[in-house]
């Protein structure tokens, strides 16, 4: 199992039936593939669908039946189409049980920086700032380190913030880390990974949870 699949599979276990969830681009979107069969989750798309399902080969292509990344989707039975004010009302109003987002950095205070690299191309946060400030639970899905091996989990974000003190949990290919008011707490390690390894690869103090467990995938 590759890192992405591991992360997505683990996060999929966080949800229970009835949850309303927004999945960001990349690894977060994979989470939808691993939800248990008996778990019914409302998938929310910023562009105006509550109740997204997989694209159906039986439906003709339709530029208006996509997720917020312009990928084709279907609307599940019971799903609804909404306008942007309602879509972001759902986000800002605390009606999302969770948002799952990738990131460039996340820190020990729960701040997240996932929209801009300093000196990089400027684009804007889209809906990300609403998602992190509004969702009941902000879940970060990320590889533990960047491609050049630097920790993405740091003491204090150096990139421009998407939100300050908003992240609840981080899931990487190595660990599940909870963010508490006292800092980072290691809750689970991936199979074959030691707490020492996670601590070594984390750029901020990481307490080992009293109930540290191996991740079930």
């Amino acid at each position, binding site marked *: 199992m590759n890192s992405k699949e591991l992360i997505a599979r683990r996060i999929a276990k966080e949800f229970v039936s009835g949850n309303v969830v927004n999945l960001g681009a990349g690894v977060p979107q994979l989470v939808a593939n691993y939800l248990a069969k008996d778990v019914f989750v409302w998938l929310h798309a910023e562009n105006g669908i509550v109740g997204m399902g997989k694209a159906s080969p039986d439906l003709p292509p339709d530029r208006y039946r996509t997720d917020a990344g312009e990928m084709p989707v279907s609307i599940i039975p*019971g799903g*609804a*189409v909404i306008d942007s004010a*309602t879509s972001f*009302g759902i986000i800002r109003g605390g009606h999302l049980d969770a948002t799952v987002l990738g990131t460039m950095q996340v820190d020990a205070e729960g701040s997240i920086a996932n929209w801009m690299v300093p000196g990089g191309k400027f684009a804007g946060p889209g809906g990300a700032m609403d998602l992190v400030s509004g969702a009941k639970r902000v879940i970060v899905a990320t590889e533990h380190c960047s491609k050049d091996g630097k920790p993405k989990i740091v003491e204090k974000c150096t990139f421009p913030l998407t939100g300050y003190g908003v992240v609840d949990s981080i899931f990487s290919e190595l660990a599940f880390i909870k963010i508490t008011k006292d800092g980072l707490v290691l809750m689970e390690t991936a199979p074959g990974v030691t707490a020492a390894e996670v601590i070594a690869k984390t750029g901020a103090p990481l307490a080992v949870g009293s109930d540290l467990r191996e991740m079930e995938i």
Partner: protein
Amino acid sequence: MANIMDVKSAVSLIKDGAVVLSGGFYGNGTPAAIVTEMIAQKKKDLTVANNDGNTVEKGVGRLVAAGLVKKFICTWCGRLPLAPELAEKGEMELEINPQGTFVERIRAAGFGLGGVLTPSGLNTMIEEKWGERITLNGKDWLYHTPLHGDVAIVEADRADAAGNLVFHLTQRAFSVAMCTAADLVIVEVTKPIEPVGSIDPEHIHVPGMFVDVLVPMNGVMNYE
């Protein structure tokens, strides 16, 4: 998926002291069976927010008449003289909002906004008693806080088992905003509950994700 319950079980979820947002314009759109059951179960010390309360015989005016309301928030209560009477005697608190402010306060709570900035009510008793003047963007506004409910009770015409709602004509009114703005949303549904997916996703007035409990009336119109 919404929980489908009989009215007794649904109302048993409402706690004494709850802030209750209730749909209805002159009681039309107020869920009559739910109100009747709230009286039967003697829900006490309620804060009730409704456009007008209507009368002591129809609408949430019945809750006021039953002595169950600690605070009543409305836009007009001309058909419920009992409300200002109780307020004058100090037996119930009465708060008045302009109607547009009332619905925006509820929407602001539902949609995570910090409140309402409106020109309505400037230089009036509303400003003196319940508003706060703020100058922003070169103009004066009345600021009002979001109005969140512990419970919303509304009436809908159609619902599917996923909780998607369709209202009938002016039954819609405040109920769309109210369904977004309460921790527990209970809907009295006139017509039989339909299978999930029966309602065109483009015709849904309130998405099912906002709705917690459906109380099916199965076509028994329960108007007072």
